């Protein structure tokens, strides 16, 4: 029989596991980059077909003034779309929660808006709205539904006994909303916001690409489309890299915010040792 692990050995073991979990994806990334580089070098692939990782990084540094400007534009659009989605989704869910009539009348249209591909709506919006507004509306359309449906789910998942307690003590509608419904819906709302963050970026990119064909715009997606026309493949890769980093950062920030808000009480944010 193996001797029982001492506390220190156990701690070392969990620390080691954590290190492995961080290191493994990095190792995979390194292997892929090296393979990519080797394939490009050994086959003498020209950069306008497939640039090596070195060429992409060089372009990233060299074109940084242009690309950073585009990154900023896309991020601002995403942020505006995300805020609109968050506010719109939560407000609509609250309205639905207060009035069943409103919910029955409007919810089907929220679903329709969600299931119609945004790429198909974007060209229409660009006809009727100023371009910047159209891009934000696209980001909003994609982002608001998860917030709406998650918040609705959260507002409906209240502990029945707690609701009875609020009734017993004569809580007003506003008190029930503020002290019971919103706090118990918070984990659901934050989950919806996490999805909406990524989706807002997608909405912004889709709208930029749709707008890009109309000639204007300067976001990252527009850069990708533009570089494609000019066969500037390294810049396409560089812009794509920035987009995906932006997506990761947005997700990470929202996950962090969610963790900070829930860590004292919600199961999802608790450590496993408890």
């Amino acid at each position: 029989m193996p001797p029982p692990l001492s506390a220190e050995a156990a701690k070392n073991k969990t620390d080691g596991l954590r290190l492995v979990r961080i290191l493994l994806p990095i190792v995979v990334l390194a292997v892929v980059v090296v393979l990519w580089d080797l394939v490009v070098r050994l086959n003498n692939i020209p950069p306008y077909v497939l640039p090596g990782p070195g060429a992409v990084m060089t372009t990233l540094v060299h074109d940084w003034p242009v690309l950073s400007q585009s990154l900023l534009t896309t991020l601002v659009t995403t942020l505006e779309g995300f805020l609109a989605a968050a506010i719109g989704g939560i407000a609509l869910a609250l309205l639905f929660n207060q009035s069943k009539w409103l919910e029955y009348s409007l919810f089907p249209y929220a679903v329709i808006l969600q299931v119609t591909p945004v790429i198909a709506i974007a060209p229409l919006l660009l006809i009727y709205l100023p371009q910047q507004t159209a891009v934000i509306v696209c980001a909003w359309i994609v982002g608001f539904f998860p917030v709406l449906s998650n918040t609705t789910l959260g507002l409906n998942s209240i502990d029945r006994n707690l609701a009875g307690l609020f009734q017993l003590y004569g809580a007003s509608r506003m008190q029930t909303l503020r002290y019971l419904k919103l706090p118990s819906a918070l984990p659901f709302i934050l989950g919806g916001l996490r999805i909406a963050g990524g989706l807002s970026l997608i909405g912004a990119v889709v709208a930029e690409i749709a707008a890009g064909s109309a000639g204007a715009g300067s976001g990252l997606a527009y850069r990708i489309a533009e570089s494609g026309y000019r066969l500037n493949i390294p810049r396409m890769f560089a812009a794509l890299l920035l987009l995906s980093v932006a997506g990761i950062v947005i997700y990470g920030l929202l996950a962090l915010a969610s963790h900070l808000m829930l860590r004292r009480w919600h199961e999802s944010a608790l450590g496993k040792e408890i």
Partner: protein
Amino acid sequence: MIGPAASTESGSSASDGVAVSLRGVTKVYDSGVLALGPLDLQVGKGEFVSLLGPSGCGKSTALRLIAGLNTATAGTVGVSSRSRQMAGHSIGFVFQEPTLMPWANVRENVRLPLKLARTPEIDSEPRVQQALAHIGLSEFADAFPRELSGGMKMRVSLARALVTDPDILLMDEPFAALDEITRFRLNNDLLSLWRNLHKTIIFVTHSVFESVYLSQRIVVMTSRPGRLSAEIRIDAPQTRGEDFRTSAAYAQYCRQVSNALAPSYAGQRDS
């Protein structure tokens, strides 16, 4: 002793007055099932009464009717309320689960009834501290519910019910999910709270032993529909402890209550 009682005289000391009275109360659910009644019940002020019966016999329903959480289909539910100097509510309710808000710490959970009554924090704080002191949880005021054991959560729930200084405390199988040792300790604490604070307590349970240990009077109910089948008065001193739990009188009462309860279960065997 056994057998249905259509109408009941409570026989409680008349000078104290009546805290709760149910007259011909029935409750029919939307599905058409007759859950309760007709039930007549009188509880005197300051009395400790247990409603005892099998699961699903409508004792919780009766409690919810008294609390005003549900409305009776027929009959009258009367609850006396003295004029209150302090803001709050004259009924405290303790559910089977602790029913705490997981996002709020112990202090805020206990404060909730006062907050809903819009009591300013400066007035509510001493009352919250007093309620916490009553149930011995003062040093856990800043803990979150998930950090507490089942027994401690139940104590917080009790403190929350006491914080409005209610006249009547309704308890719906509050200790059913706890282990026996914790349950005994909470039983003792509840008895001393009852003696010191002079509350009327209606206690729903399906435990014969718990009901005999705690109550002055036990109301045995039949199941589906819940009706009153027997009433047993426990003539034991108000100060009860381990010596009462191990006494011959206690065992005698338990046997008597079990016998009274047996017919309630007879119809349930095959379900």
